[in-house]
């Protein structure tokens, strides 16, 4: 046992835990200086996080306004072709059960057929009075829909109810009025069971709808079930199929819908679906980001130089300590590793604090503007880690400098 053991067990050698402990003690020795050291990195990382975060938030905000109506609406129509005379005509028709077919697709929340009905010389009136001397007034449009029209078009029933599949099948003479049409026809309440007349036929008004965001023209129209329109008004083919989609379902539904509606000739169905979410956001983001990211990069560079400076200063200050450690048996590599780890830890601290600060700023700004803060968390993690990377780069030169210190001169000149 006296021949000093050449083979020290691995656990008793200068290991990672010793390295970390020494580096931590080195960093912790001067907390005030630590704050100053990481300041540059904190500001750099924070500005990058704020830049990207606010850009994402703003883009999300813009998207949200787009989205609310457009991103969840889809339309399918029969394809048209241009004839020799310059007129366009449909090359196919949608089936009457299109809504059922569409609603089976994943991503479709509601679907409804909306078809304009040609009235010919029929008038829409509240009272069937034939007064040859009265001037003709413009009729409200008459539109046939399938039962789920309000779900598909984003409307609300403000009075009464919307017609259902039963009304449709039995071709019941019921109508629902758009709010504007109801006002024009003088229908204010549906609980008195009012009727309107299309030509000579009476239709019972069972509801009034409002707020049809996707087809505001329906507000000034008389809506009746497909069944009644086909039986009474000779509606022969459905017009358009309107769909209410889940967010981001557009591309998928768009590719499946023609086949679902017309399995034998999907090319006869034209679909218009909202684009994926990304294209709008990306273009907005790219503009905002470029400048601020450049600024953040400059701040990071300054932060890195700051760490390098302070680490170098610390090396020069601790020449005596380095000499002592060498005398106590530390290798050059262990010395270099210690200063490297100190620098990386300082950088990482700066990164963490900076990322946290950035997230806080994004949240506060969003809260003040009543936006929804949107932040890619991976980006925040990457920002914190990049602080460590900056520390690594900044620590390279000072560490090599520390490793190259000769213990002899260091110990003689020390404090």
């Amino acid at each position, binding site marked *: *046992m*006296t*021949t*000093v*053991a*050449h083979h*020290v*067990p691995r*656990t*008793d*050698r*200068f290991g990672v835990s*010793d390295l970390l402990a*020494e580096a931590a*003690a080195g960093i*912790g*020795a*001067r907390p005030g200086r630590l704050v100053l050291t990481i300041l540059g990195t904190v500001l750099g990382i924070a500005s990058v996080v704020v830049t990207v975060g606010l850009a994402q938030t703003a883009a999300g905000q813009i998207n949200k306004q787009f989205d609310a109506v457009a991103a969840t609406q889809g339309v399918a129509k029969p394809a048209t072709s241009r004839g020799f005379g310059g007129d366009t005509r449909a090359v196919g028709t949608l089936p009457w059960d299109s809504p059922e077919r569409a609603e089976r697709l994943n991503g479709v929340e509601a679907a409804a057929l909306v078809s304009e009905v040609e009235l010919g010389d029929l008038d829409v009136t509240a009272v069937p009075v034939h007064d040859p001397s009265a001037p003709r007034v413009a009729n409200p449009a008459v539109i046939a829909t399938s039962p789920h029209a309000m779900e598909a078009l984003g409307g609300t029933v403000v009075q009464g109810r919307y017609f259902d599949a039963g009304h449709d099948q039995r071709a019941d003479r019921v109508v629902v009025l758009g709010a504007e049409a109801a006002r024009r026809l003088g229908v204010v309440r549906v609980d008195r069971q009012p009727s309107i007349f299309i030509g000579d036929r009476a239709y019972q008004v069972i509801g009034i709808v409002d707020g049809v965001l996707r087809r505001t023209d329906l507000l000034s129209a008389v809506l009746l079930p497909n069944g009644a329109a086909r039986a009474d008004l000779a509606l022969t083919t459905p017009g358009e199929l309107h769909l209410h989609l889940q967010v981001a379902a557009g591309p998928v539904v768009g590719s499946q819908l023609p086949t679902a509606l017309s399995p034998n000739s999907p090319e006869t169905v034209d679909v218009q679906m909202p684009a994926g979410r990304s294209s709008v956001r990306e273009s907005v983001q790219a503009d905002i980001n470029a400048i601020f990211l450049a600024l953040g990069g400059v701040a990071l560079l300054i932060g890195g130089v700051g760490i390098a400076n302070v680490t170098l200063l610390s090396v020069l200050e601790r020449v*005596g*300590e380095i*000499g*002592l*450690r*060498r*005398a*106590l*048996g*530390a*290798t*050059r590599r*262990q010395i270099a590793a210690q200063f490297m780890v100190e620098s990386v830890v300082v950088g990482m601290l700066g990164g963490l604090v900076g990322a946290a600060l950035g997230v806080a700023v994004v949240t506060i700004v969003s809260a003040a503007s009543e936006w929804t803060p949107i932040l890619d968390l991976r980006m925040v993690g990457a920002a914190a880690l990049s602080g460590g990377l900056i520390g690594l780069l900044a620590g390279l030169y000072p560490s090599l400098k520390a490793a190259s210190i*000769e*213990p*002899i001169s260091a*110990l*003689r000149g*020390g*404090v």
Partner: protein
Amino acid sequence: MTVMDLLGAPQGGAPTDPDQPPPVVELRAVERQFPGDPPVHALYPADLQVGAGEYLSVVGPSGSGKSTLLNLLGLLDRPSDGEYLLDGIPTAHAGERERAALRARHIGFVFQAFHLLPHRTVLENVLLATIYSGVPRAERRDRAVEALDRVGLSHRLDFRPTVLSGGERQRTAVARAVVSQPRVLLADEPTGNLDSESSAAVLELFDELHASGLTLLVITHEDDVSARAQRRVRIIDGHMREIA
């Protein structure tokens, strides 16, 4: 049982018997010159043997080559020529890692300037020596406390070196030097920064360490310090000579 308990048997003179353990320090025609025009001879070829448990002092005026000798003995510098055996292990051509390992386990340093870390407690300063020398982790704290007890500082464990007196600082440094149970203690002007009272206490401590079997090598320019040693070596202008 410690290293020190086993030492101490051979006192004075180089062992000639092959069964004897090798000397702790053996210089064979070691010289050191620094390149230049003309080259500077800091140490002319010198031979020296220090057996286990000996107490040797090196004296000489400043600029005589004492520091060069210390650096060579402490494996902080390599001889230009010759061979230095530390505990029988040739070191002149050993790799940097091996020399660092030898420094860690075989040599304890005491400096004129103490070299204590100001932000660490006394105990932590002593523990610093154990992390590089492979002292078993479980024993480190106990050994450090024991070493501090030995130098009479067990009541100062949690103090910062900055609040200690010069004598206490140097005793802390001695505790740090002996905690890894080295084969030889190298002291470089250990009393250079101390008043006479503190000096006396430190020299007293050296005597105790010597009595317990530790090999001591003290470099000094003060005659009363060197007088405490059994053997004295003088360096003048790079020439080393033993004083009878």
